[in-house]
């Protein structure tokens, strides 16, 4: 039975709420509605004892969940309870408007009625928790998670893509920090996550609940095994993919066109006097994330400091560190705000045409190289993985956060978390909720 209890709170809530109207509007939503004064006092609690049975779903509209929540939870026999803080969310904010207050109360109570239907049964987390975490890696975040969990004394199994090596970590993550810092960080992480059991292969099946998941693994060697883990952390990498303008820019067809991720290698090989003109283009449809922006700025600064003439066609420049932008300008990078419209591969070089919107004028640049800003997309394995694990994806194909603000690392499934670029969070945060669920 779905029951609604409305507390009049020392007969003060009547001042703000039209209880008769609320009762009428809630009539079809609940099986029973009781209005009672001072539910939090002994007399009120006794009343609840007599009215509520273990199978009921209960909505309580009262003062605030802080005051009423604790005594109720201890007392009530049922599992599905939702508190609607009427005093706090209605009476306090709609002081002079009984009509508005009552309408809002109805909406909140109605929401709560739906919510109790959707509540996970409270007993779902296994009490017999497996103190072991599976990290599905591919990213520096996976290593960081492994390293942290090991420090906490948690057993870790690190599932890595087949072809992975330390060098891949460096290459795949070079956009995150300056290369020397990154190398050091990776070296430390590899060292401190040594105790993790590393498996090369993929996960084929998942069953069970948070705290006790059963997973089936298929090793690259063909071997299959089944394991119990308490929690899973998805730390698959994001991939740099060519932007939509790549085709127009003859990427893959011309030697003069490359991706920004390939630029550092080109510069490293360059002889001191052999300077080039390099046109770097950001796809206009792509809003740069701060991490992409910082990487772009660092890379073009290096290219420019080596004596190359670097032109950047861009829209909004995003970075967490304004000084990176300052450094790029100081290094002499030529910033042109506009989007590449036409590219011609000529003998003299790539002819890049665009309108510089800051002077409303079309400009043509003939350059030695055309470099394209990549777009970070979820790694190809992410979708497949989400399918096996039963996780929801967001519109861009990244793993969906349960609650982006307060639970930025929880997936839609309890006991499964993510770290790093599996969702474009940029630093390998490990979130100790995992530990809480595991231990």
């Amino acid at each position, binding site marked *: 039975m779905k029951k609604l209890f409305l507390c009049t*709170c*020392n007969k*003060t809530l009547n001042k703000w709420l039209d209880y008769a109207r609320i009762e009428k509007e809630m009539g079809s939503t609940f099986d029973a509605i009781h209005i009672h004064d001072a539910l939090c006092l002994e007399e009120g609690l006794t009343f609840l004892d007599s009215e509520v049975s273990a199978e009921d779903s209960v909505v309580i509209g009262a003062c*605030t*969940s*802080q*005051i009423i*929540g*604790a005594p109720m939870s201890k007392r009530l026999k049922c599992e599905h309870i939702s*508190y609607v*803080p009427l*005093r*706090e*969310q209605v009476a*306090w904010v*709609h002081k002079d408007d009984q009509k508005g207050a009552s309408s809002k109360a109805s909406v909140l109570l109605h*929401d*709560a009625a*739906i*919510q109790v239907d*959707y*509540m*996970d049964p409270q007993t779902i987390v296994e009490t017999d928790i497996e103190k072991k975490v599976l990290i599905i890696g591919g990213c520096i975040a996976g290593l960081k998670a492994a390293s942290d969990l090991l*420090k*906490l*004394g948690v057993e870790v199994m690190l599932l890595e893509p087949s072809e992975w090596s330390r060098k891949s970590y460096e290459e795949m993550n070079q956009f995150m920090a300056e290369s020397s810092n990154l190398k050091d960080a990776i070296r430390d992480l590899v060292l401190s996550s040594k105790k993790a059991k590393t498996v090369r292969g993929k996960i084929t099946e998942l069953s069970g609940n948070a705290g006790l998941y059963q997973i089936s693994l298929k090793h690259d060697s063909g071997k299959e095994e089944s394991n119990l883990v308490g929690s899973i952390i998805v730390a698959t990498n994001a991939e740099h993919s060519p932007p939509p303008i790549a085709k127009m820019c003859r990427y893959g067809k011309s030697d003069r066109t490359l991706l920004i991720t390939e630029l550092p290698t080109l510069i490293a090989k360059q002889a001191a006097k052999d300077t080039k003109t390099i046109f770097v283009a950001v796809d206009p449809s792509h*809003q740069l*994330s*701060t991490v992409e922006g910082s990487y772009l700025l660092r890379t073009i600064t290096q290219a420019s400091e080596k004596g190359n003439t670097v032109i950047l066609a861009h829209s*909004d*420049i*995003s*970075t*967490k*560190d*304004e*000084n990176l932008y300052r450094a790029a300008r100081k290094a002499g990078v030529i910033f042109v*705000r506009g989007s590449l419209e036409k590219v011609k591969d000529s003998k003299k070089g790539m002819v890049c045409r665009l309108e510089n919107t*800051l*002077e*409303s004028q079309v400009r043509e640049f003939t350059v030695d190289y055309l470099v394209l800003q990549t777009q970070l997309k979820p790694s190809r394995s992410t979708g497949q993985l989400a399918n096996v694990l039963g996780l929801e994806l967001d519109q861009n194909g990244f793993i969906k956060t*349960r*609650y*982006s*603000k*307060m*639970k*930025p*690392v929880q997936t*839609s499934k309890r006991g499964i978390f993510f770290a790093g670029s599996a969702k*474009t*969070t940029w*630093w390998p*945060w*490990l*979130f*100790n*909720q995992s*530990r*809480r669920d595991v231990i």
Partner: protein
Amino acid sequence: MTKTAVVIGAGLAGIQVAQQLTDLGIVVHLIEKESIIGGLSTHLGRVFPTGDCALCLDASTEIFDGQHRRCQYRGLVTEKKNLKLHTLTEIKSISEVDGNFKISIKSQPRHVDLDRCVVCLECIEVCDVNTPDEYGIRGGTRKAIFRPIPQGVPLAPLIDMEHCTKCGKCVDICKVNAIDLEEKESTKTIKADALILATGVEEKVPLDFPGYEYRTSEDIITHAELARLLDPAGSTNGEVTTSSGNTVSEVTMVLCVGSRDLDAAEYCSQACCTYSLKHADMLRDLGIDVTICYMDLRVPKSSEHYLTLAREKGVKFLRGKPDSVIIRNGKPMTIVEDTQSQKRMQIESDLVVLASPLSPLADQNDALAEFIGEYGFISRVAKEGRVYACGTATGPTDIPTSIAEANAIALQVYTDLEGGV
């Protein structure tokens, strides 16, 4: 032996790190200088990326994705045994003896006993004093016994002795004897194994930025002030009005006022683009025209939908940094070059909202001086294995990143204190 940590600042990051550490078995003292926790978010009304109540974080759009019908923090900070919240409290000094911190704190009296008060608010009803409301705008007032905002935690009111006449009416009406008009300030020394600075940022009052005449007009406001106007629980009941009480039909927003500026804040304040977009969306919903003057729109991935929404709702974007906002014929006028049409514009509007820099609060406390670094921010590990920082104390950022950082720091504190395995 149980370890103790002191967290300074009970904004979102401080609350998060304190909770996490408590869950990991560490005793935590959470120090907050204001009377309520929540820091900057208490001013903000709805916050991104989800657009829900800053403090309740009552996730309306993600309601069925998770179990967060209620405030994430409220119960946690007040119900946890090992988490001791000290409001109205300042750090007097920090000293280090044999690897331990001795942190002396001083608490101002609240005059209302938190353990007794049931928040019936009858005391506020009977108070005869009316004084300007710090959280109000457009002449809002509050009583001498008051709650800064309805959702503030702790929920109990406090008494502002500067305005209290000690008439005793509140004492008489309180059925639970929670009010003590004679309560005195108290000092205390806490021994701690680790110190976490979550001192946060404030939106700088834009008095010192030449050209933008914030000082001379109440129609040139900041985003925190706009949030107060938009807040249904605020002094205008959510109505956006001019200083003379007229309805607002046009708003101009100026980004990077004093940010990315060698004469003011050299850094990018990170969050202003997004909260400007958020406010623009809210204003459009009220039928108000909005023009945003920007240089680069820096919107994190998690909040990109605000940009899409703003474009769909017809927010006007103008790329250019205004030189000045002056008062012409009683209305604010923004002078700016639209760099994409190369035209110098004079935009008249009813309100101008300045995105003032988010500036660090840590450097206002001398006791923290030794940890402060570039621009007044603190590095995440301010002192190896002992002093940490998280949230906006380490640099301006949005809430998800703050929370993520708080989580990461909690883990680091824990492994450092417990020695790991």
